[in-house]
């Protein structure tokens, strides 16, 4: 397909040492009219210093309330190839594990029905297909779903749950993040495809506190693997690290956030009762330290990016929960949280914002959790729990 537009402003974005999305659009433009027009439309946006995209609307596939995000150009006559340029979210496999056959199959379909442009992966975790026409939505959906794929979540719904690679590739994972994510996805299909919440609700599951997928900052419900009991120490391996040049005091002891470790040049000691299980020492001394044997997860609620109020990090609500199939405890807790949020949440108010507005005390009472010291967010703050008059009788 011949080049249709000069794009001096976009060309600037190809300079520099990082990969450029402009280069990728240009590659797709060789085959796809819509990608070609996308270059022109984007150049126009840069020239006019304003977006020419409209967002939302009534696009979708029958029966689903999410998974397709409507994008329309406000200058369709100028760039007919992107008059509609809808985004499709495909539910990614847990931990982003694909085989090449599956990817080729999907990309062949996308070359046929769409612009050929993709985003692996969106910040939601979904596999994102960028740019197709309204009339292609149903046939594309029929093709992808017949091959075992499903649409992801969008709008005021449970969003596609995502997780780190977990036990698939990481020996430090305390929980089976892949299975948990799959199980949550299957359990809450209705909540993902039929938007009925005040706003979005995200699950992200990390195998340990290193939190490679940043669940603590990006999910309404962060499930983070942890353990009970003492960190297991191999003192011979500690000696091996010292002998091979590790400054244990500088790199490990002094960086422990709770100062619960000591090293006398011979033995490493840990006051486990003071450990906050941040994983720093374990991640640095992988040969010498291992988590305790009893594994589970800490459940945190409420993180989000700025919108109604500013950015929030998730807040501990269950310090330790066993995470074994069929994960009944987390599913029941989730249903209670949703019930409370549905009752009191305003339009476009996230769970974290509702907790800020109504108070943690109300939240805990509503979902039936007892207050615990691990829930206190920072020292020397007034506790959020007070006795109710009838509890004093």
């Amino acid at each position, binding site marked *: 397909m011949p080049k249709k537009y000069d794009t001096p402003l976009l060309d600037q974005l190809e300079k520099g040492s990082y990969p450029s999305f402009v280069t990728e659009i240009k590659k797709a433009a060789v085959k796809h009219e819509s990608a070609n027009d996308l270059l022109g439309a984007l150049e126009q946006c840069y020239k006019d210093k304003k977006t020419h995209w409209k967002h939302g*609307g*009534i696009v979708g596939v*029958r029966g689903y309330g999410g998974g397709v995000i409507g994008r329309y150009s406000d200058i369709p006559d100028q760039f007919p190839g992107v008059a509609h340029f809808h985004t499709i979210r495909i539910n990614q496999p847990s931990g982003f594990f694909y085989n090449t056959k599956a990817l080729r199959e999907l990309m062949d379909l996308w070359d046929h029905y769409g612009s050929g442009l993709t985003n692996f992966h969106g910040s939601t975790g979904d596999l994102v297909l960028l740019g197709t026409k309204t009339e292609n939505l149903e046939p594309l959906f029929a093709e992808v779903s017949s091959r075992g794929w499903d649409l992801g979540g969008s709008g*005021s719904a449970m969003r596609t749950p995502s997780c780190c690679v977990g036990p698939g590739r990481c020996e430090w994972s305390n929980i089976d993040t892949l299975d948990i994510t799959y199980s949550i996805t299957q359990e809450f299909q209705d909540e993902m495809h*039929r*938007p*009925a919440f005040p706003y979005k609700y995200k699950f992200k599951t990390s195998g340990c506190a290193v939190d490679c997928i940043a669940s603590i900052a990006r999910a309404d419900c962060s499930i983070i693997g942890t353990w009970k009991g003492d960190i297991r120490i191999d003192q011979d391996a500690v000696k091996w690290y010292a002998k091979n040049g590790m400054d244990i005091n500088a790199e490990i002891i002094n960086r422990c956030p709770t100062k619960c470790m000591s090293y006398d040049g011979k033995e490493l000691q840990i006051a486990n009762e003071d450990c906050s299980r941040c994983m720093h020492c374990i991640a640095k001394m992988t040969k010498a330290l291992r988590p305790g044997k009893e594994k589970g997860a800490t459940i945190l609620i409420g993180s989000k990016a700025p919108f109604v109020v500013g950015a929030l990090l998730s807040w501990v609500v269950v310090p330790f929960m066993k995470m074994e199939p069929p994960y009944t405890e987390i599913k029941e807790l989730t249903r209670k949280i949703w019930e409370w949020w549905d009752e009191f949440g305003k*339009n476009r108010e996230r769970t974290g914002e509702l907790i800020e507005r109504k108070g943690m005390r109300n939240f805990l009472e509503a979902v039936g959790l007892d207050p615990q010291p691990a829930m206190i967010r920072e020292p020397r703050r007034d506790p959020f729990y007070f006795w109710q008059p009838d509890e004093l009788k």
Partner: protein
Amino acid sequence: MEKEEVKQKIYALVEKSVGRKKLKSSDIQKTISAELGISRDEVKNALKDLIDAGTLIYTYFGGSFVEIPPKQ
């Protein structure tokens, strides 16, 4: 309560709100379950049928709503 009757009530509610207020799925569930004295799950189920049949559709305008599809 027959499911058909619930479906009719839902459709009437959405139709009545056209041009006044966009209804969310949870608004419909709350209103109809209170009005008919049935569970929210029953309303949800009837709504699912209406959506699957294309009688009602989901729309997104800074939040997800249930609406009557536009006439072609």
